[in-house]
């Protein structure tokens, strides 16, 4: 589930919101739209020659000013940081700069296309970081072979950054890389495909449980797909009190349990999945998806998209008024109308053209805003949960219903609150270098998160960014 575009008119909106009775757009039509968007993206990428650039934030009145911004004046700034490394957060842009690091081993749905081909995606991510979070993010695709090489490279990059966002790394190596890098560095490390998706999912689930008057402690939950997102979701749910003996993870070989044939292999190849196999022991069940879903309250499907993976009879076999999250993109494991017709009380997808979009973009800009403002030394799960809880609370402004368990990207007033909750959590955990009150964090987040849209508008008004060409743009070099 990739984040969708957040701008006023996200491309997904080209497929207008459908009412529940409408048929899903035909595959051909949807393919046509995707093709058109892809064609536009290539044309416009050429027209603008990339998506981001570096812009000075200091006045340059004359060339003399460079003796302040650069040598000889800057030497004193370097000396100060050499004496006290923490001053790098005061005297440079480190406080607000994040690296988007990828090896390109699992890019969107494209697979292992390598770091160079991943660059446009990382540029897009950097744009989202800036526009939504006010965060200066730098795309850093790296050519590395092994996880050890990845770790050494990312570690070597850390001095320039206040945080690291790992992106599009294949599972299961993404788990070890996130764990080990978090351990080695004194800045927050985030893997959006794990934590961003899991936090948005958990936020949605908290409200879905409220909307159906359930408690996380008593529900029987099924996670379909055991990749980056669902393994992180499982961990967060367990931290929230989900009973492991009522939690079943299901992958392509069925329910994951302690005596499954491949469990010893997992202990060597995939210790994260192995641990969950032991901890949940299949939620007391063996077999496949049907066995797992029998009587279950909650399904979170975040699988390799194979449409029709979840069938109406699966949903009918769940407990009354079940909660169904079908998060595969672009085609959910079951269409919302089909899930509702089969009795689902709350349905969420990864798509913006249905209610209840589980979207990473609801999470990562605000999380980074928060940890950067607190200058946090790490990113423990408590911070991820604080973000999820605050996001869930944010949906209350418009009222939590089965059709509104998560804020939409348009409910932007929620995001500074998520950032402040994250910063508060860092302070409470004792990992904040910068301790401020909630109101101070909130005010700062509001300012920093609002600034980029002013900037973008001002640049456009000054014709410093060129207007978006209609139709086929002319070739350009600038």
């Amino acid at each position, binding site marked *: 589930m990739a984040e969708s575009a957040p701008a006023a008119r996200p491309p997904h909106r080209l497929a207008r919101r459908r009412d529940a009775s409408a048929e899903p757009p035909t595959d051909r039509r949807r393919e046509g739209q995707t093709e058109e968007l892809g064609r536009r993206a290539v044309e416009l990428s050429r027209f603008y020659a990339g998506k981001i650039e570096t812009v000075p934030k200091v006045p340059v009145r004359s060339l003399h000013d460079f003796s302040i911004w650069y040598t000889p004046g800057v030497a004193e700034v370097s000396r100060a940081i050499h004496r006290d490394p923490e001053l790098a957060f005061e005297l440079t842009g480190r406080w607000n700069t994040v690296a988007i690091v990828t090896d390109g081993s699992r890019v969107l749905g494209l697979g292992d296309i390598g770091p160079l081909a991943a660059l446009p995606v990382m540029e897009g991510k950097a744009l989202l970081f800036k526009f939504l979070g006010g965060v200066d993010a730098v795309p850093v695709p790296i050519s590395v072979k092994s996880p050890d090489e990845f770790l050494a490279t990312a570690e070597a990059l850390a001095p320039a950054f206040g945080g690291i966002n790992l992106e599009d790394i294949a599972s299961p190596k993404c788990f070890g890389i996130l764990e080990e890098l978090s351990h080695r560095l004194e800045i927050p490390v985030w893997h959006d495909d794990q934590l961003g998706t899991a936090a948005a999912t958990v936020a949605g689930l908290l409200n879905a449980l409220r909307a159906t008057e359930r408690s996380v402690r008593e529900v029987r939950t099924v996670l379909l797909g055991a990749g980056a997102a669902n393994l992180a979701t499982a961990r967060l749910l367990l931290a929230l009190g989900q009973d492991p003996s009522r939690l079943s993870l299901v992958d392509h070989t069925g329910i994951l349990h*302690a*005596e499954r*044939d491949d*469990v*010893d*292999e997992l*202990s*060597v*190849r995939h210790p994260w999945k*192995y641990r969950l*196999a*032991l901890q949940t*022991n299949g939620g007391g069940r063996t077999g496949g998806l049907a066995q797992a879903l029998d009587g279950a309250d909650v399904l979170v499907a975040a699988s390799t998209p194979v449409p029709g993976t979840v069938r109406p009879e699966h949903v009918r076999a769940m407990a009354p008024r079940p909660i169904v999250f079908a998060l595969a993109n672009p085609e959910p494991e079951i269409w919302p109308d089909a899930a509702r017709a089969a009795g689902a009380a709350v349905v969420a997808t990864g798509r913006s053209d249905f209610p209840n979009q589980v979207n990473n973009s609801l999470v990562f800009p605000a999380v980074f805003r928060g940890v950067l403002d607190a200058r946090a030394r790490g990113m423990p799960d408590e911070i991820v949960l604080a973000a999820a809880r605050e996001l869930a609370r944010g949906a209350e402004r418009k009222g939590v219903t089965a059709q509104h368990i998560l804020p939409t990207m348009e409910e932007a007033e929620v995001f500074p609150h998520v950032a402040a909750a994250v910063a508060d959590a860092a302070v409470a955990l004792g990992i904040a270098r910068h301790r401020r009150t909630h109101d101070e964090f909130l005010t700062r987040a509001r300012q920093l998160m609002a600034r980029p849209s002013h900037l973008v508008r001002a640049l456009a008004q000054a014709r410093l960014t060129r207007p978006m060409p209609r139709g086929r743009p002319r070739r350009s070099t600038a």
Partner: protein
Amino acid sequence: MSAAPGAPSTGEASAPPVHVRPARDADVPSIVPLLLRLKRLNEEFDPLLKVRDDAEPRAGEVVRAQLADPKAVVLVAEGSGADREKVVGFVRASLRERPFYTPQVEGTIVDIYLLPLYRRRGGGEYLLREVTSALKAKGAGVVTAEFPAQNEIAVRFYAKRGFRPVTSIHARTL
């Protein structure tokens, strides 16, 4: 030639979750799947440990033969509670003469396996202790263990219990 005793005990060895007893012929159908799990795990460590297609019938024959062999020890671990009658682990060892070294008799643990849920709770340690006593009772003056060189979990398990590398077996395909 293998061992996957699971991870180190957490110090709860006083109340292991398993009961260990000598294996009987009737246990063979329960031991075979566990033995195959162990061999398939070993496959993860080296292509020269690839499990054969006929491994299952062979495993039954090998275990049955050892049950009749006075120079072999086969023990099973049974679970507790609802798993009281269930074989959840086993250990297989044999006595070997050392014609040139002293001590003269070596007891070699060739397989030790516990189902994952029974690991990390002192069960592996208990199995090891029991098989060691049985080998000693049969005259062994030294106990050794064979397992894939790359199995670091096994290396740590044995190292924690006083084992050290003595001989190495190196291989190349012909």
